[in-house]
């Protein structure tokens, strides 16, 4: 045949980008959570109200509670939104979702994913083929990200994209730029503050050294301060700093989110509930009403048996778990280990933090993708963490139409990443004395060597991942047998309990990986 219209090609990055975008377009009419309305409301607030009203307006219950730069991002988007449907920009138009509003909001997520693509492209360009293609794919095609952004509806592709850019810049030695980008990110979503200590220690020890150490320190400090001033300045001038900070840090929220994130506190609460059920049988007095809270509303929860946990306790715990890596970064600020260290920081705040959202696990998975192709140990950690982490995200979608979608997305990403990474590892090891020439050959040549996946993961880990399949089967059967009312509470509770144990055990794997190379 004259031209090559074939499935295989050496560079898969462009093709995977087009294919992913296509998939996201197909997902436009899928289920949307209330986050869709949250962001519509923010579009309306920022575009139609004066600056002084942004953090004051309470027309909708979904008040603006992201930092100012994100508000400015919504303000920018609103200019394009006008072309699609100007009615969505009306603050009092609550729960407005015309076809064009849906199309616009979905497209805005799809288009801003470019930031993540760019970061992954930039961050993996020094890798050799086929590792470059694989690392790129692992970063951009994350099923959890697709589920949270393109079905549930959020802008994590943009935010994590900025984080990935910052990490990639630091890996390349552009400390100042990476640090400033992180400062900007903090002013878009303050959740990333958990990375603050790492950035501080790393930049202090890696950037601010040599003859001009003091000068560099002050330059960095001044520039970071400038970013914060640009974001918060207008509100400080308007005398609203208290108001804005009050919105950003609401202390009315409880230890745990309505849908438990798979962390230490979920285990703690599970133990509490078990005790609350068991102790009365042994003759102890227990206040059952507190233990029966099933979540649903964002509220301060009470424990029936175990002591309540204060926000301060969690903060100390998080800092304590972070300490080993911070110390090793202080001793040896190594750019190559920065991505792993960042993932570890996020993991600490996820595992022990106050009011953690389940989606925060994405902050752990994505930075790990850069290094996953470098060694079997890194690949193993990445696979175990990303597969269990994404599995723990699935209860986020509970509608019937989305069930097959989320299962297929997870299945494709999990199996695909297992196979691609084991292909990479064989390539690295030069197994069978036949190193592959191109990414295509590596992918197709090694795709049918299934045994290498088990070899990479280890039997026990492979069995563990297969156990997730078994767990899901049990859950589905349970859902069919259970009466409709009890179904949701019981099953979601079970998913949480099991998923959080998975991630907890995995976290120790990351700790090892995060601290060893530093």
């Amino acid at each position, binding site marked *: *045949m*004259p*031209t*090559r*219209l*074939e*499935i*295989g*090609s*050496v560079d898969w990055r462009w*093709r*995977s*980008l*087009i*294919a992913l*975008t*296509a*998939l*996201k*377009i*197909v*997902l*436009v*009419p*899928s289920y949307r959570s209330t986050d869709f309305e949250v962001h519509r409301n923010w579009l309306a607030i920022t575009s139609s109200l004066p600056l002084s009203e942004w953090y004051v307006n309470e027309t909708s219950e979904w008040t603006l509670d992201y930092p100012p730069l994100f508000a400015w991002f919504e303000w920018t988007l609103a200019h394009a939104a006008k072309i699609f449907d100007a009615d969505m920009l009306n603050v009092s138009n609550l729960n407005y979702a015309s076809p064009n509003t849906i*199309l616009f909001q979905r497209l805005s997520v799809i288009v801003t994913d470019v930031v993540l693509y760019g970061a992954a492209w930039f961050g993996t360009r020094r890798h050799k083929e086929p590792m470059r293609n694989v690392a790129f794919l692992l970063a951009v095609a994350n099923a959890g990200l697709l589920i949270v952004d393109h079905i549930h509806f959020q802008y994590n592709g943009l935010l994590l994209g900025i984080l990935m850019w910052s990490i990639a810049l630091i890996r390349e030695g552009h400390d100042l730029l990476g640090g400033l980008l992180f400062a900007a990110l903090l002013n878009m979503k303050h959740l990333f503050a958990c990375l603050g200590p790492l950035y501080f220690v790393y930049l202090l020890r890696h950037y601010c050294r040599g003859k001009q150490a003091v000068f560099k320190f002050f330059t960095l400090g001044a520039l970071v301060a400038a970013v914060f001033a640009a974001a918060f300045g207008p509100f400080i001038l308007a005398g609203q700093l208290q108001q804005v900070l009050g919105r950003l840090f609401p202390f009315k929220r409880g230890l745990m989110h309505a849908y438990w994130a798979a962390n230490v506190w979920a285990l703690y609460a599970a133990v509490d509930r078990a005790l609350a059920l068991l102790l009365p049988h042994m003759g102890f007095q227990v206040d059952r009403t507190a233990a029966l809270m099933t979540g649903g509303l964002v509220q301060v929860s009470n424990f029936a048996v175990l002591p309540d946990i204060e926000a301060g306790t969690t903060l100390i715990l998080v800092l304590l778990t972070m300490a080993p890596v911070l110390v090793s970064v202080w001793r040896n600020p190594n750019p190559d280990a920065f991505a792993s260290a960042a993932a570890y920081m996020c993991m600490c705040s996820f595992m022990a933090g106050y009011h953690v959202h389940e989606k925060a696990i994405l902050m752990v998975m994505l930075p790990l993708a850069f290094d996953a192709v470098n060694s079997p140990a890194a690949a193993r950690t990445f696979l175990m963490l990303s597969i269990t982490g994404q599995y723990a995200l699935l209860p986020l979608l509970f509608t*019937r*139409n989305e069930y*097959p*979608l989320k299962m*297929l*997305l997870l*299945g*494709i990403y999990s*199996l*695909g990443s*297992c*196979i691609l990474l084991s292909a990479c590892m064989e390539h690295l090891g030069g197994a069978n004395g036949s190193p592959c020439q191109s990414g*295509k050959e590596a992918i*197709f*040549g090694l*795709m*049918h*060597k*299934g*045994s*290498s*996946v*088990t070899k990479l*993961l280890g039997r026990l880990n*492979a069995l563990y991942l*297969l156990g997730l399949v078994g767990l899901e089967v049990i859950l589905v059967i349970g859902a069919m047998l259970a009466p409709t009312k009890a179904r949701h509470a019981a099953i979601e509770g079970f998913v949480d309990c099991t998923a959080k144990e998975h991630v907890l055990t995995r976290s120790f794997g990351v700790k090892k990986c995060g601290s060893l190379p530093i």
Partner: protein
Amino acid sequence: MLVRALGDNAATFLIIATSLLLRFGVGLHPYSGAGSPPRYGDYEAQRHWMEVTVHVPIQDWYTSTTDNDLDYWGLDYPPISAYQSWVYGKAIQQFEPGAIASFTSRGYETPSSKTLMRWSVVISDILVFIPAVLACRWVFFKDATAEQRAWVLFAALLQPAAVLIDHGHFQYNNISLGFAAGAAAAVASGKEVLGSILFCLSLNHKQMSMYYAPAFFAHLLGRCLARPTLLSKVGAVLRLGFVVIGTFACIWAPFLLSESGALGVVARLAPLRRGLFEDYVANFWCSTSPLVKWKQLFSQQELVRMCAGATLFTALPAMLQQIRRPSKKGLLLCMASSAFAFFLFSYQVHEKSILLPLLPVTLLAPDLPVLASWMPAVATFSMYPLLKKDGLSLAYVGLLLFWAAFTLPDRAAPKERTRRPGRRNCLEDLIADVLPVLFRTFVGLALGIHAAAAVLNPPKRLPYIFDAVITVLSFLQFAGAAMHIQLLLWKQDHEKVH
């Protein structure tokens, strides 16, 4: 162990999973006639058939009774479709009886019943179409490279046209196409009886499978004639004849025994009641109608005869080749050729019928890389007016983009080609030079039309000008593809002689 087993077929698993993902994804979009009373669309037709088959006694399925109003989406597909409606109807009744309640369920559109209906199409894919494609791959590309085997599966399962029609517009073409593909696999692997039965099933699911009949007839006849003695030749033909008659008898048994009988059913199936073509279909008659007013120049009788003549004339060369020299892949090429003949020239063709020539072309993807990546895109493009009407524009963009992501040529590749020395004749050289230019031209024109349709309003005198241009453009490419397949078939024949 499971990981090891999966690993061996990881590409297969990933492609099938991706194809299911896109099928479920397209299922989220609207279907034909969604929310448009009083007659709705094909979705309502299929739902209504479930309602009728579950509630009306079997001998009355095709007859007008007080329980069965044939004027409202009366059954006009052959019995296997009706049996399928009964099975799915019974299943849906378990979950949501209201969805197929007698009479009261007309225009029943709840989100949950939509999900059930959508899933029934995916189940048809899993039960019939995907196994059939896997069987074809096993028969035709057993010893091909991993990459080629992945490509054939990808082309057959992810070509956008079929996914959009079955899972978007809403039909069960995957069942009849799956049976036809299964028949091709069976016949090619020497199981002629099984193949004949499967083809009868296909024909009795949708009469459109008739498009393949010349190919199966010619190929099977060729195989029978290849037997050594006259007696065994005649015996083989008779044996297949009995198989076909027996299968038909079994399928039609409930109607043969009833009073109004099979003739009543046949009358429901005959397509001659309608016109030469409907709306915009990229075949010869519709595409040339702006120049020649066929419908005014000739009577219906004359038109039917002209169509039959032209179809037969186009299908004949490939048939003769297969009678003379039946070959495995020749069967698929002949299926493509005769399906193209029917699509381009027969009477009363639907735009959806392009799925029939597409199936064998995609099943031959490793041998026909250009055709198998180009034609599905053109077919999808040719159905755009229909898809737009159904509210499937987004799904159309998504699936075409997905297809393009994996099938667009590499920019570096053509240079590689010219460097490679090889025997070629002038015609092939010419095609090699012209094809990429043609491809770019057509892609450019297609993008141009979409852009124009999005920005401009059509002139008042010609409100359907964009649809007409889409039709003519697609027709040109289909005609080229049909000729290409003819050439290939005879070239294959020629090579075999040497």
